Each structure stands twice: as C-alpha cells, then as structure tokens.
C-alpha cells in the first residue's frame, strides 16, 4: 500500500520539477534559439536518464557539480577561445543577422505620405502606454479637406475619452499596451480598430515633451491593419513610412531612396557598397589568427604587451619569493621553544590573512597616497623624504610588492609551520652538540627538509599571483600610465588587468584581442597547474 504511494509521490515531484524546465526549453525554441534549445533538451534527457536508470548511478553524484562546471567554466573557456578568432569590439559588436535586421528596420518618409495625429495614454503601470492614431487627411474627403483636417486637429488637442466614438470615415487605430523605453529598437506594434479604447485622459503635449516620450516614441513602429508601417515624423504627427533597404535575391540590400547596393564584407565586418563605403554599424566576423598576430606585429600592442608580460612574471616570482622568505623566517622563529608568548604572536601575525584582502588593498591605496598617506607622513617625519609611490613606475612596483608581502606572508607562515612541526626535533640535537649557529642550522638542516614539500605551494602561489587581479586593480589600477602605449596599458598592469581593461574599461572594448590574450594566459597557468599536479602526486607517492 505504501510503496505505490511513495512511488507516485516521487514521480509527481519529479514532474513538478521537470515541467517548468521543459516549458523554458519550449520558450527557448520558440524564440529562435534552436541550438541552445537542443543543448538544453539534451542535458534534460541526460539528467532524466541518470536519475531514472540504475545504470547511471555514479553520475547521480557527478551530474550537478559537473553541470555547473561545464556551463560556467568549460563553456566560457571555449567561448573565449572562439571569440579570440573574431573581430569583435565596440565597432563590430553585433551579429551579422542583427545588423541586417537593424538596416532593414530603418524607414524613411516617402513623398505623399499619409499623416496621422495621435493620442498617448498612460496605463496604471507607470511605464506602460497605449497609443491611438487618427488619420489626419482621410483619402476620400467628404467635406473640404482643409476644414476636416483643422477640425480633427482641434478635436485632438482637447478631446477626451468620451469623444472616443469617432465618425466612421475617421477611423481610430488603437495599439496594444507597450512599454517605454522600448526594449528593442524599431519594435513593430500591430494596431487595429477593435482594440479597447484606453481609459482616462490622453497625455497633454507638455507631458509628452517633459517625459521625453517624443524621443522614445521614435523607436517604435506601428503597423496598420492594411500592413502599412507608420512612424513618428514630428512632435504631433505619425506618418506612413517605407523601409530604406530591401533585400534582394542574392542577399544584398538595395537602398530604396538612392539605389545604392550594399553587401556584407566579411573582411571588414561592415555592409559596404562596391566602392567600399560603409553603411550602418559593424558586425562580428571571423578573422582567423589575426588577434594573435597583432600581439607580435602591431607596434601599439606589441610594446606594452612585451613589457607587461615581463612584469607579470617578475611580479609573480618576486611575490612568491618574498612572501615565502618572510613566512619561513617567522615560522622558524616561532618554532623556537625557548621563546615565550609564541601562541600570542602567531595569532597576531595571522591577522593580515584574516581581513578580506580587498579591504586591506584599498586601505593601502590610501596609506601610500603621495601627499596625504600614512607612509609618506611617517617617512617625512623620520627621514624627510616623500617617495612618489603613485607616479614613479619603479616605486609603484615596489609598493605593490610591499603590499603583497603584507597580504601573503601569513599563508606561507601557516604552511611552513605545518611542515616544520613534522620535522623530527632529534636532528637538531646532533648539530647543537657541534655548536653550529642558527643560520647554519637552518641552511643545512631545515631548508633541505622543508623545501621539497613546499614546491607545490610555491607553484600555486606563483600561479595565484600571476593572475592576482584584485591586488593590481584595486591598488594602482595599472597606473602610472605607460608612455607611448595606446593609452590602455599601465606600468604596473599585469596581463590579467591589462586584458580586463582591453575588454571592459576602454572605449574600444576589444573583446577579440582580450580573448586572445586570455587564451595565452590560460595556457601559461594551465601548464603551471599541470606541473603542480605532477609535483604533488610525486611528493605524495
């Protein structure tokens, strides 16, 4: 009795969970993302198979974690790799289909266009509107044309909802409810005469201009029941429009106004005429290894890239070496059994590691301020000097290393302490009899024993600092700027901050180049990780 009930409950729960997912999958398919929809469907089917079939038992444990890993690690990696072979920047941002769509939605007002007066109503929801169009010059005028036009114009300006039932020859076209600002440019709304007349009063012309609605309305196109397209032509008027570009059979676009013919040019990523005249915005396009070759051939990229490359390695190595040296020294010192209060010292020494790093880094940014910071105040009072931490590239680099030493030594100290404690104390007794000094002890006995198990930690530290984005970005943001570069590169930038700036903090938004550098970075760090793995496995066995 209970077993079937339990089974029934299980299945209905599963159905409850799966139905929304299938619905989303359906929505995805309906919105034209065929590839993504197939991908999601495949994942759903795999998921159902794994959890319903006993053969997939192991994968029940792996599926959720690996799914997250696949979507948010592997996919971004592949996507970045793919972008690195494309021209993809602020000028060539959209897909070719989107650019073609934008061109084809451009309209112009032909000769003899029909004009419409309009009323706009705000619905209860603040950003939702409805629009009502009325023909200004109805084609077969029953009365003298001028009069009607005037009359209707007058009526418009003071008409209210009660005046809605219009004379039969003066048809109103009513839009569905829409939102301003429009989500997509040149959205087409289909009007008809049967829609319900909106309630309340239309907005006065003052409300329209104050809310900048006349600007937002330009992004909206209305379609009349006879399939004519109507767009805003002046503050008070809509008029019939015609598309500027029409698609020809061979895939080119023809301009209806001046007869120009443009074709997409995959080399430049623009729609161009025969003469090479560019029209509209650019689109993403495949360029092969061009982004990679730019790194070694383009002077404006090559020079800063080479310097940043060298600094990144130097920074990562020195950070690793200094933090290790200080951490090791403190760990050895605190292993000295004769020293009192070791526990107390150790707790305080871990402090820099306990505070969230970004807060410390930002604080140091203030402390190293050339004019007002604590460091220069201290140095000024003691030695009467005030180093230019912010404008001298070498001092800025020194500052970065000092701050990173502060941030990084506690971790090294913790690990070194762990390793030191595993060394048998007996070995020191032998050397104590010899009367050797602590330094010789350390060099001849401790270091050779502690260093091998530390190798993976050192490699990990190198790899971590190699991509230590927060430190550089929050401390100097790459400043001071590199002279003679393209204006993006800074003297203290490391590759990862440089790449971030290339993609996100620069008007060029060069995603293609940024992705190429990202790919190179990944290869370097990937090799380090692999080496590390070999070392760890080596020391474990």
């Amino acid at each position, binding site marked *: 009795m209970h077993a079937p009930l339990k089974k029934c409950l299980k299945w209905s729960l599963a159905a409850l969970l799966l139905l929304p997912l299938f619905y989303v999958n359906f929505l995805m398919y309906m919105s034209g993302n065929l590839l993504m929809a197939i991908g999601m469907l495949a994942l759903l089917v795999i998921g159902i198979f794994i959890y319903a079939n006993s053969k997939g038992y192991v994968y029940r444990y792996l599926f959720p974690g690996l799914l997250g890993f696949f979507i*948010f690690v592997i996919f971004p990696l592949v996507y970045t790799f793919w972008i690195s072979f494309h021209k993809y920047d602020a000028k060539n941002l959209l897909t070719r289909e989107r650019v073609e769509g934008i061109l084809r939605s451009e309209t112009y007002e032909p000769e003899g266009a029909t004009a419409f007066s309009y009323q706009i109503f705000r619905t209860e929801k603040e950003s939702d509107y409805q629009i009502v169009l009325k023909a200004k010059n109805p084609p077969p005028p029953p009365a003298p044309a001028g009069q009607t036009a005037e009359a209707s114009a007058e009526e418009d300006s003071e008409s209210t909802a009660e005046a809605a039932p219009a004379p039969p020859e003066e048809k109103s076209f009513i839009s569905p409810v829409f939102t301003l600002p429009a989500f997509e440019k040149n959205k087409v709304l289909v009007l008809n005469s049967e829609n319900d007349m909106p309630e309340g009063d239309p907005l006065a012309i003052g409300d329209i201009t104050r809310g900048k609605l006349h600007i937002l309305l330009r992004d909206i196109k209305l379609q009349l029941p006879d399939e004519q397209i109507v767009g805003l032509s002046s503050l008070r008027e809509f008029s019939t429009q015609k598309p500027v570009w029409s698609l020809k059979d061979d895939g080119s676009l023809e301009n209806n106004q001046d007869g120009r013919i443009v074709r997409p040019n995959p080399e430049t990523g623009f729609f161009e005429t025969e003469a090479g005249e560019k029209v509209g915005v650019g689109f993403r396009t495949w360029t092969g290894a061009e982004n990679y070759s730019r790194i070694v051939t383009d002077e404006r990229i090559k020079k800063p890239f080479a310097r940043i490359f060298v600094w990144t390695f130097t920074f990562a190595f020195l950070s690793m070496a200094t933090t290790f040296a200080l951490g090791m020294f403190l760990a050895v010192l605190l292993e000295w059994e004769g020293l009192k209060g070791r526990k107390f010292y150790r707790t305080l020494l871990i402090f820099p590691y306990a505070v969230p790093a*970004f807060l410390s880094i930002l604080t140091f940014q203030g402390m190293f301020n050339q004019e*007002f910071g604590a460091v220069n105040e201290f140095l000024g009072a003691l030695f009467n000097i005030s180093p230019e931490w912010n404008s001298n590239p070498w001092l800025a680099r020194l500052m970065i290393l000092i701050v990173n030493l502060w941030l990084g030594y506690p971790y090294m100290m913790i690990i070194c302490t762990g390793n030191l404690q595993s060394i048998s104390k007996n070995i020191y007794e032998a050397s104590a009899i010899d009367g050797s000094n602590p330094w010789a002890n350390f060099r001849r006995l401790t270091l050779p024993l502690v260093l091998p198990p530390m190798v993976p930690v050192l490699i990990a530290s190198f790899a971590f600092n190699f991509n230590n984005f927060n430190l550089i970005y929050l401390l100097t943001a790459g400043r001071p700027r590199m002279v003679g570069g393209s204006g993006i590169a800074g003297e203290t930038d490391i590759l990862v901050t440089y790449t971030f700036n290339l993609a996100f903090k620069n008007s060029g938004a060069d995603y293609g180049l940024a992705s190429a550098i990202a790919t190179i970075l990944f290869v370097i760090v*990937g090799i380090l990780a692999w080496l590390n793995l070999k070392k760890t496995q080596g020391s474990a066995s």
Partner: protein
Amino acid sequence: MNLETKLKTRKFFAHLFLILFILMIMTPFLTVIASSFSRGHFAPSKLFPTEISLNHWKYVLGIPHEEVVNITTGETRIIKADVVPILWFWNSIKISVIASFGILLLSGTCAYAFARMKFAFKEQTMTGLLILQMFPMVLALVAFYTILEFIGQFAPSMGLNTHAGLTLIYLGGVSIYIWMIKGYFETISTSIEESARIDGASPFQAFIMILLPMSAPIFAVVFILSFISYMSEYPVASVVLQTGEKWTLAVGANSFLYEQQKLWGRFSALAVLSGIPITVLFIICQRFLVSGLTAGGVKE
C-alpha cells in the same frame, strides 16, 4: 660572553623584532579606524583622529545626519545615503553563504563519486577539473555576461544584475573544493561504509549517514574558504551587478574611491564595520583552517 647571556640577548632581540613587526603590521587597521571617526575625508594617515565625528558611521548605517557641504560658507545639509552601504554587506553575506552551501552540495557529492566509485575516465576528469579551473574568472567575463543575458531572456530573476545570476556563476568554481574533499575522504577508511553496505545500506545512505558526519572538519574548511573568497570577489560582481542596491561589499566599497573624489571616511567606516565580523569569524575558525590548508596545500 658566555652561552647564557648570548641566548638572552638573542631572545631579547627576537621579542623586540616581533613586537615592532606586529606594530607595523597593525598600523593599517589603526589608521582605518581613525579615519572612520575623522571629520572630512582624509586618506588613512593618522593613528588617532584629530577631530572626532560619527558622520561616516551614520552615513554607512543609513542614519540621517548633518554634514558641512561648503567649507568656505559653512553651509550644512542633512545627508542620508540613497542606498544604505550596510546593505552591500548584507548582499555579500547572502550571496557568499548561499554560494558556499551550493559549493558544499556540489563538490561533496562529486568528491564522493571520485573517492569511492569506479567509472570511465576518472583520473582524466580529475586532472581536467583542476587544470581547466585555472582559467581565471576575470577573463571569462565576456562569456559570463553573454550567458546571463541569455538566461535573463527566459528567467529574468536569474539574469544580469541579479544575485541569483551571480551565485550561479560562483557555483562553477567547484573543482578545487572537489579535490580538497576527495583528499579528505581518501584518508577515511572504507571499512565502516563497507560493513554498512553488507547490512543493506545503499551507497547513498552510507554517504549521508557514515561518511558525511566523519568529514565535518573538511566541510567546515571548504565552507570558510569559499565564503571568504566570494566575499572578496570583485571583477565578476562589478560587471554582473549594475545598480547600487544590488552591489556586493567589494563593489560598493570601491565605489567610494573614485579617481576624482576619494571618500576615505565613508570607505573606512564601511571597512571597519564589515571587516570586523569577517576577521573574528576567521580567527575563530583558524584552527580548522590551518589543518585544512596544510593538508590540502592549495589556496584560492
């Protein structure tokens, strides 16, 4: 000089060095505290504020207060933050806690399969997980942006500028934690689980009822490490979260320090307020962490 006095001088210098070193290490904390209680916005420079004012604290806590807006005329105005900065702290805690629990769930189950079960390409998958994770999150931002934009079309509550979207991205970073937990599982003998299996327990029951309770320490370590790393994460949050009320602590704190105008006072108050609980948590959990770090040997 005999051996004993030599040892004594050495001890004296060791203490002197450690005390001076610790004083030096602590100055940043002291200057930040001083700066948060100062009047006006000065870069952290003094150990003690010259003129004590609670304005920055009031601002950060969202309490309306009077502040001089024009130094020459002495004109004052009542100031209240549009987005109360303490909200960023709450956002950070919320996202980090949820993401860390998610990480425990995802990496714990995966680690169990890797440690206790046999399947095709197990070793290769493990190696692949570790190496692929080396791809820095910062550089995948273009892709993250595209993914969230896409998800947002179908589920706006998980798209761009949402905490759920950011949490989803954070959940991708499981592999290091899988390695840590798997390493710990492997140090636990399988004999108890095996005898439970003989008594009729399913692998899932063995996992939940036997292995999990024995692995509590490593789960604590993973939780704390991932919590701290998510609290500090800046680049992804700064691109995904676009409006002030959604920001995390790292994004919000940095927003006080524009290039043109650095509001050190407000930054300091926020830093002290949010830094203290995290630091205290860390010091309390230190013992766990030290063992976890030395065992795993992997940071971040």
